């Protein structure tokens, strides 16, 4: 079992969370070109190493957290509360 320390609930089973994905910033939909928007939708860094990502504690506090995780070892370096939901959900 992998433990993920939720910013609000403390260490919890990773199965309680939904992995939202890499933390990205959404381009402004009013000004973004279709290509920019699709790059935001589909393209991924897919880092092998330390990465910052968003998780959603769906079976707990139902809040979003920002996690720094190593994708090769699944080590977790830091967990913070994520920003506004609009940003956190990509």
């Amino acid at each position, binding site marked *: 079992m992998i433990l993920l320390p939720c910013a609000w609930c403390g260490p919890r089973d990773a199965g309680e969370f939904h*992995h939202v994905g890499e933390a990205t910033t959404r381009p402004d939909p009013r000004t973004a070109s279709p290509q920019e928007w*699709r*790059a935001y939708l589909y*393209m*991924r*860094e*897919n880092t*092998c190493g330390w990465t910052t990502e968003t998780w959603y504690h769906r079976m707990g506090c139902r809040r979003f957290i920002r996690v720094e995780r190593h994708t090769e070892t699944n080590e977790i370096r830091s967990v913070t509360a994520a920003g506004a939901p609009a940003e956190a959900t990509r």
Partner: protein
Amino acid sequence: MATNGHRQPARRAGYPAKYSALGLFRRGLTHTEWPPAWRAHPIKRSYDVVIVGGGVHGLAAAYYLAANHGITDVAVLDKGYMGSGGSGRNTAILRSNYLTPEGVKFYDRSIELYRTLAADLDYNVMFSRRGHLTLAHNDSSLRTMRWRAEVNKAEGVDSEVIGPAEIKRLAPFLDVSQEARYPVLGALWHPPGGIIRHDAVVWGYARGADALGVHIHQNTEVTGIDVTDGRVRGVRTTRGDIATPLVLNATAGWATLIADMAGVALPITTSPLQAAVTEPVKPFLSTVIVSGTLHVYVSQTDRGELVFGASVDPFTSYAMRGSLEFIEGLAGHVLELMPALTKVRLLRQWAGLCDMTPDFSPVMGPTPVEGFLVDVGWGTYGFKAGPVSGEAMAQCIASGRTPEIIAPFGLDRFAEGVLVGEKGAAAVGH
């Protein structure tokens, strides 16, 4: 010998020996050593084509480059041993009952190539066409199966929706009662599907490519790709630099890392997929059984072991480690399907890396960098597509044009928003 539409390559005289019953008998009597199936070469400083990734895709591409197009100055590089990645970790299931016409056509060509592969490669790949059964436990999956069956029939692929009585006849050990937690309502029956020995496919392609002059370099890791003025000039490896005008990225799991070296962005996330195998038991399961609702697929190998696979782990990772949750969930799901297996013990479990794309279709063909081609994004369905991908990528390299069969799978479809949605047929069903 079946030729499958391909020109049969002239093998180098005396090497490697053609396998035959007479040869087996003679060696059995004389105890002489078998010649190695492929050779190790010193690495050359330049090649016409460098293929990164010595799995079924890379080796098939090398083989068809040499056999169909006469391009033999080819190097296949692998950071480990050949077939050590996805090619040796999949559950070796072959089928072509996909959802989109593009997908059905493509995978059906692969099954066609697999059908005669043993004869084409002079190598026993143990393809057993035992039929493939995808179970529906609810109305929506039954609806998708009807849809798939109709698309399949329109493309000339044998698929039909059958009811519980017929399912019971095909797989007597399956619980098709209405008392089950997820009762079986029907199934998509796909007789041309089956299983194969995945290592033999890798070795057969390696042997075939080697005989035609392709260099296979194992334990040779690519550390960089030289790109100047938007063109590939060469690759850097742990065994020195190689000059080449053409690089094919045929890796799985590390596709993003190799593409990053050439500065090409991919729409891929990597997640592990776990599988497991039981101790061998007497043959009782003659078909491949898949349940999307229960996230499991089961087949019995020729040795009698039951091979189980599942869906990808619920988060991205490059860690190829098994987890207890997976085994617990898997065992519960398998017992839902076949309660008689309660006393069967698991032998081992493992994980492989899956490069998932947003539409569950691969990414194949040219990239914005000239001379850098990709055959990546193979998610959970890469092994069955090995031969057709090799054939198509070889044609793409030799002609410089994208063959029609892979045209829908180009990298540019993500910028243009023309996706090929295969989630309904590729997500768990194999």
